[in-house]
């Protein structure tokens, strides 16, 4: 209806998307610049002076390893966040007990602690555990996992809780009258119905872990260095010239991932559960 009335809105969306994408386009452009001398490799060239895929071919293995490590880490974090988030969301939404609001607040607490505080606190706690003869968590996958999990779980809980709140309890009752046990109801009705929330929670957790720098800077080890830390160090010291190429690959990969999710549940259904259950 009266399309021109919606125009300012669409223009604003365009502006914001352009704002988000401008630096990404620069990075993509710079990734194909065929700079040839060592000195010219320390900064981004845009617009590119030519077209070359040489930086795609010369990505150091350490970066690949770190990217792979980050993907693994993010995947485990997402899986674990789901394992925690699912029962927590069910308990929060369906449980009726005194102090429910306190419990809800507690689950949100990790998002209220400044990330740098979290990073330092985990680092010190890990050393403390080690000093007591416990496992050496600093610099280990387990340590990073715990730090990321701490940060990611609130999102997952929020996302699943939101879709659970929208869930029509009549569906469960219908299944019960049809002879399904409580377990079967969960499996055949409830879980499929909160799937968008679950996917949303997984995506959030994955994204949080995959882009986290602040905590990782403190908890990373020599062979357990998440990808964003690698990029951060590269930018804050002497730049690895293939970083733009690698970033482009990550960007394209994320497009594939999102496309797959979109096919599975539909982005909109997924974001409807949006990690924001209030």
């Amino acid at each position, binding site marked *: 209806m009266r399309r021109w*009335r*919606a125009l300012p*809105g669409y223009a*604003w*969306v365009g502006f*914001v*998307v352009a*704002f*988000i*994408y*401008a*630096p*990404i386009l*620069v*990075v993509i452009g710079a990734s194909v610049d065929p700079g040839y001398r060592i000195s010219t490799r320390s*900064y*981004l060239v845009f617009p590119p002076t030519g077209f070359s895929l040489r930086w795609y071919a010369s990505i150091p293995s350490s970066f690949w390893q770190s990217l792979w490590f980050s993907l693994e880490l993010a995947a485990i974090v997402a899986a674990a966040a789901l394992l*925690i988030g699912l*029962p*927590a969301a069910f*308990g*929060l939404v*369906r*449980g*009726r007990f005194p102090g429910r609001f306190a419990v809800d607040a507690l*689950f949100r*607490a*990790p*998002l*209220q*602690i*400044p990330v*740098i*505080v979290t990073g*330092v*606190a985990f680092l*010190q706690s890990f050393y403390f555990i080690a000093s007591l003869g416990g496992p050496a968590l600093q610099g280990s996958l387990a340590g990073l996992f715990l730090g990321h999990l*701490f940060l990611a*779980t609130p999102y997952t*809980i929020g996302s699943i809780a*939101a879709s659970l709140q929208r869930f029509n309890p009549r569906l469960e009752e219908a299944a019960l009258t049809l002879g399904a046990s409580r377990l079967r109801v969960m499996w055949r009705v409830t879980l499929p119905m909160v799937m968008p929330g679950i996917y949303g929670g997984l995506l959030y957790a994955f*994204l949080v872990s995959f*882009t986290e720098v*602040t905590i990782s800077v403190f908890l990373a080890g020599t062979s357990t260095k998440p990808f*964003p830390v690698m*990029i*951060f160090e590269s*930018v*804050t010291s002497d730049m690895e010239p293939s970083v733009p190429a690698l970033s482009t690959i*990550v*960007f394209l990969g*994320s497009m594939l991932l*999102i496309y797959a999710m979109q096919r599975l549940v539909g*982005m909109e259904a997924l*974001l*409807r559960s*949006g*990690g*924001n259950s*209030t």
Partner: protein
Amino acid sequence: MTARWGLFLLPPLALTLLMLGFTQFIFLKSSVFADLGLGETGTAFTLENYIEAVTDPLYLNGMKLTLELAIGVVALTLVMTYPVAYVLTRMPARTASLLLAAIVCSSFVSVAIKILGMVIIFAGDGLVSRFFRWLGVIETSMQLLGTMTGVVFGYLHLAIGFMVMMLFSVLQTIPVKLEEAAQIHGASRLRVFWRVIIPLSLPGVLNAALIQFNLLMGAFVTATILGGGKVLTFPVLIQRTLVMFNDYGLASALSAVLLVIVLIINIAATAAVTRRRVAA
């Protein structure tokens, strides 16, 4: 039957409590002992770290700067993303999901590298400056590295993607019917926004804004890169205290101060909105 659902909470609750309580305890412990240099702390209880943290103008200014930055950026992010999220909820679903997907994808790219891209765009010889010079609007270049503007831009990039997603999930719960009801009873588009959409989305928006605020209060990566060593936010000061001073007592005290201030703001903001809602 409902009581049993509560039981599901126990394992996640225990885990969260452990991760939260244990780490914070270990961390805050060192803040009440004197720093002996090289990471060693004394054993006698003292408040000198806290006294320094709350009296030294360096840290006070750092806190002021950080609060201004975080609040300013959250406000700016809201201004930018709220209309976007709104337009997305009222768009044909297919287009909306495409745009949302695009926004999500952009979040996967490290902020650190995006920052370099921005530096190029806004540099003295960069695209934006050239464009403005061509328009004859601005003579001097827009400096991003080492300026507040740059840090704000960096923070925006950090916040926008998540904010759009969260606001979308809030706004899409507001029925179009209510907008139409407001419109037919004489409210212009702007008034509909002001009297219906904003009040109804307030709790959800506040929740999202607080999450972003907290995130920004604890972020030092962007300020480190884009601040060019000039923008000393509180997290940057904490990081420097740790890495350059190696003063754990003071760093813990500073962190504790940051934590308390952030928590107070969270509680106050939530209480303010909840009171309105309870009244409602």
